[in-house]
């Protein structure tokens, strides 16, 4: 049975989006992305190293013709910086589908939602398809949807923390009220966290550090692929009701 994942009218097979930061080499990045089965990878925009002309570039390892590049604004603390970054990203290769994150605090890397909402409106007006990183607050995530975001990306826990989903109730509330895809972004630590996100009904999960910082990133990438599929299938299968007491699986009749 086909289970296509659609963002901004584009169809994808995988519901796992992976980041490409923190790997030991581009080769490892490419191998992890391959093992994850992801169709979309996030990428950052940075200055070219002018002095070292022979440095390898990401595009030589992950061809944007075959995998969707999702430019992000990681490291941006103001709306101006985020807008500048995404405009440059669009000029680089015509990317209109982008991930916006405007951070508010260096220690927690929590998003500044006021700047985020402001930036979303401007980007939408400029013709971008904006996937928006946000807090797990149902009211603010609704504001983001109203601002024209094509996907809402609430955090499970702080970026790179690996703490797993801290507020399942909020993630579920956000999913229930949203008419655009909801993607858990940030905070996933291991496979079960990704499965829980999908069991809650989320449309996809974005993972970077949990894969890149695993002792075996390639194996963890593969594990995340299966975790997302497992969670998605469990969600669609609709789980059994919980009971407070035991309920025997074998019949009580004809006992010897």
């Amino acid at each position: 049975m086909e289970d296509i994942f659609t963002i901004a009218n584009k169809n994808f097979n995988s519901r796992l989006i992976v980041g490409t930061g923190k790997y030991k080499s581009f080769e490892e990045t490419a191998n992890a992305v391959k093992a994850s089965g992801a169709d979309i990878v996030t990428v950052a925009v940075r200055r070219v190293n002018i002095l070292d002309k022979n440095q390898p570039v990401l595009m030589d390892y992950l061809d944007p013709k075959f995998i969707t590049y999702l430019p992000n604004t990681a490291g941006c603390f103001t709306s101006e910086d985020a807008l500048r970054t995404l405009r440059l990203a669009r000029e680089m290769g015509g990317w209109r589908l982008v991930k916006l994150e405007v951070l508010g605090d260096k220690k927690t890397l929590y998003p500044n939602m006021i700047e985020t909402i402001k930036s979303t409106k401007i980007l939408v007006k400029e013709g971008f398809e904006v996937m928006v990183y946000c807090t797990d607050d149902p009211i603010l995530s609704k504001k983001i949807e109203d601002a024209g975001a094509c996907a809402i990306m609430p955090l499970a826990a702080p970026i790179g923390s690996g703490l797993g989903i801290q507020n399942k109730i909020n993630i579920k509330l956000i999913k229930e009220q949203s008419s655009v895809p909801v993607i858990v972004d940030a905070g996933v630590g291991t496979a079960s966290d990704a499965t829980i996100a999908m069991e809650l009904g989320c449309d996809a999960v974005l993972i970077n550090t949990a894969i890149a910082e695993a002792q075996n990133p390639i194996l963890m990438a593969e594990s995340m692929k299966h975790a997302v599929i497992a969670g998605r299938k469990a969600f669609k299968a609709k789980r059994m009701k919980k009971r407070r007491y035991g309920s025997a699986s074998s019949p009580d009749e004809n006992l010897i």
Partner: protein
Amino acid sequence: MNNLNMAKIQLNGDSYEIIKGTNLNELLGKLKIQKNKVAIEVNGEIVEKNKYPNLILNDRDKVEIVQFIGGG
């Protein structure tokens, strides 16, 4: 060649000398950078790729050349 033929620009935050009259295409060629893998800003304004040959760099221009790198 004396200094009169040279212009000093700010390239990715550092001082960089070019021959006067150098355009963006020539700068990329000198830096051995493929233009389809980067985006360029001159004095805070993004320059479209088809305008690289016509954009002559002047003394004290601020040039930013960016690319995609790994990120989450």
